[in-house]
């Protein structure tokens, strides 16, 4: 009887290990091999340079609309770094760096943003879902994958990415609730980049953090400095370990920032100030990590220069390969493939119909 607070749910921590000024909390520093450090740094650098290249190509009209990732490299790489090939990844549309680290080719990315269905081809055996455009919809797939992994008594885990805006969708809620009910091995990684196109976080939700939404599901949640790869890595390591050992799901909020436009057809000047962007530029993750690695003699200027060179070359060849590939792609009839395991009669008819038409009037179809 009476009025008294219910036992408070587990606290929601904020985690920061390497701050924007390079200050380090040595006690919390996760132990990471130099190889892993270089692997992660390379993935971040590649992500950054490829993003820049895509922007050039887009400006030159050699690629369609795409969503830049600049500034979110640590939040992406720090989290996927620990995934195994036998684990699953369900990306949203802005985790290009993470997808590439998981094995997606840059060609595939370019094909996608040039409007080729081949751009979502998932190589056989690759345990990644094709990137998901409908916001938050992929979050539930991760729960199903995790449920199946558990059903098969494996120690596989599933990681799913989504943005701050995605947390407003019903699918976010249904997914986290079900994951907690079934204690599925899912790591929910929210890329809180402060903006959903033109909607700032404050207009997206009235809660102080996104991490605290875990409390609604009786699920562990943590907020990390998403531009601090050490913090992202440490939080993910903890969540993955818990999930693998049957401890169930975790919500990780990575506080980061979308430094660029939402997509190349968006103009952020309409809704946010340069000052804000400047402020976040200072916090960006790549330089922070580079300095850390150099100070710890894991990275050297010459090695950095070499990495930049290699990556530049990799990107160049990828662009060339993609552009050659695309010349030989786009045969209209291909669009009938893969909708069903077997082409049903009415689609066979429609395909034949198009075949005839293409034969007659190639003209109008080409200058499409």
């Amino acid at each position, binding site marked *: 009887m009476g009025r008294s607070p219910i036992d408070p749910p587990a606290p929601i921590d904020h985690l920061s290990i390497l701050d924007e000024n390079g200050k380090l909390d040595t006690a919390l520093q996760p132990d990471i091999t130099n190889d892993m450090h270089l692997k992660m740094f390379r993935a971040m650098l590649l992500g950054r340079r490829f993003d820049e290249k895509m922007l050039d190509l887009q400006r030159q009209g050699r690629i369609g609309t795409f969503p830049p990732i600049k500034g979110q490299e640590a939040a992406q790489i720090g989290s996927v770094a620990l995934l195994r090939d036998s684990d*699953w990844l369900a990306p949203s549309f802005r985790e290009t760096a993470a997808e590439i680290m998981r094995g997606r080719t840059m060609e595939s990315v370019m094909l996608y943003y040039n409007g080729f*269905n*081949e751009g*979502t*081809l*998932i*190589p*056989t055996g*690759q345990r990644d*879902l*094709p990137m*998901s455009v*409908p916001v938050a*919809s*992929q*979050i*539930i*797939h*991760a*729960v*199903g*994958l*995790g*449920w*199946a*992994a558990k*059903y*098969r008594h494996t120690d596989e885990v599933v990681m799913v990415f989504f943005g701050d805006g995605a947390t407003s969708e*019903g*699918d976010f809620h*249904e*997914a986290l*609730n*079900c994951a907690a*009910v079934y204690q599925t091995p899912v790591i929910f990684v929210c890329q809180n980049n402060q903006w959903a196109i033109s909607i700032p976080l404050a207009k997206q939700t009235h809660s102080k953090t996104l991490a605290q939404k875990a409390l609604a599901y009786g699920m562990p949640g943590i907020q990390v400095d998403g531009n601090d790869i050490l913090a992202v890595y440490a939080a993910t390591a903890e969540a993955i370990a818990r999930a693998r050992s049957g401890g169930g799901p975790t919500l990780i909020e990575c506080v980061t920032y979308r430094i660029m436009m939402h997509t190349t057809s968006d103009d952020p000047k309409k809704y946010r100030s340069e000052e804000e962007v400047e402020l976040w530029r200072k916090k960006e993750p790549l330089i922070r990590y580079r300095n850390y690695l150099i100070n710890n003699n894991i990275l050297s200027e010459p090695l950095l220069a070499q990495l930049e060179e290699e990556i530049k070359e990799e990107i160049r060849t990828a662009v060339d390969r993609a552009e050659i590939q695309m010349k030989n792609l786009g045969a209209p009839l291909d669009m009938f*493939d*893969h*909708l*069903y*395991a077997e082409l*049903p*009669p*009415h*689609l066979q008819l429609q395909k034949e119909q198009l075949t005839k038409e293409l034969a007659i009037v190639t003209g109008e179809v080409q200058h499409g």
Partner: protein
Amino acid sequence: MAKMTMVESLNLALRQEMRRDDSVVLLGQDIGRDGGVFRVTDGLFGEFGEERIVDTPLAESAIVGMSIGMAVYGLRPVCEMQFSGFAYQGFHQLENHAARMRWRSQGRLSVPMVMRAPYGGGVRALEHHSESREAYWAHTPGLKVVIPSGPRNARALLISAIRDPDPVIFYEAKALYRAFREEVPEEEECLPIGRANIVRPGNALTMISYGAMLRPTLEAADELQQSDGVEAEVIDLLTISPLDSDLLVASVKKTGRAVIVHEAPQSFGAGAEIAARLMEGAFYFLEAPIERVTGFDIIIPYFSREKSYLPGVQRIVAAARRTLTI
């Protein structure tokens, strides 16, 4: 051979598939201990346990979305929407993902899931429990839509749906669940998805229906025979999408007349597509306008009025006579 209701034969299909293949799992609301609100999963919880008969939270988008994830992983989930009228909460999951996963991944990933849902009127159910909107799914490329008309074909089609490599929407007419019994063989029996079935041969006109409306259609055919001496050919669609156009067109080329019967609202319903296909395929054989006997373009009224909403034998006979007297 045992005489079974459709509820029992669906239960048999699920039980047999689950025994045969441990990748078959069921999920939905109240399908476990409760055995489903229509008892279709009765007893399965006892045999297969909560590992494979999964009661879910009250969240349709999650039920469909989890099924997608399970299916991509390699399982064969059969999810139940408690009523088809509550499947719309998962509409985006079906349209955006279930229907597209194979296509998006260029054939590398697939979603061999089945979404079962009771549909249709005639059982004095509450609001939102009696709709018939199969056309929504039929208009969605990437899905298949199956609607059985009785215990035996329901069982055979459900097995085919579970084994189908692509997502299948499986609508079960509530009005048929316990309406009658049929011999259902113990040994496995499948029916091909995409094939309609001539359940009553005839030459005077073609009557096309499916689900719960097949029976009034057959009764109408009998009445036409008795009182008008006319032999109607009655076709049971069984699969709404992909449509078995060839069979339909062949029949109408023979009869020159067609009546389509379904309980869904008429406009933009399945009957429109069937009529269009017949018109395209048998135009020169048509001797009268194709008649559509369907639900009206309103929401199916609460049950005190539903009988006047649903196509009845007399409406079907009247339509048939209109086409015949031309």
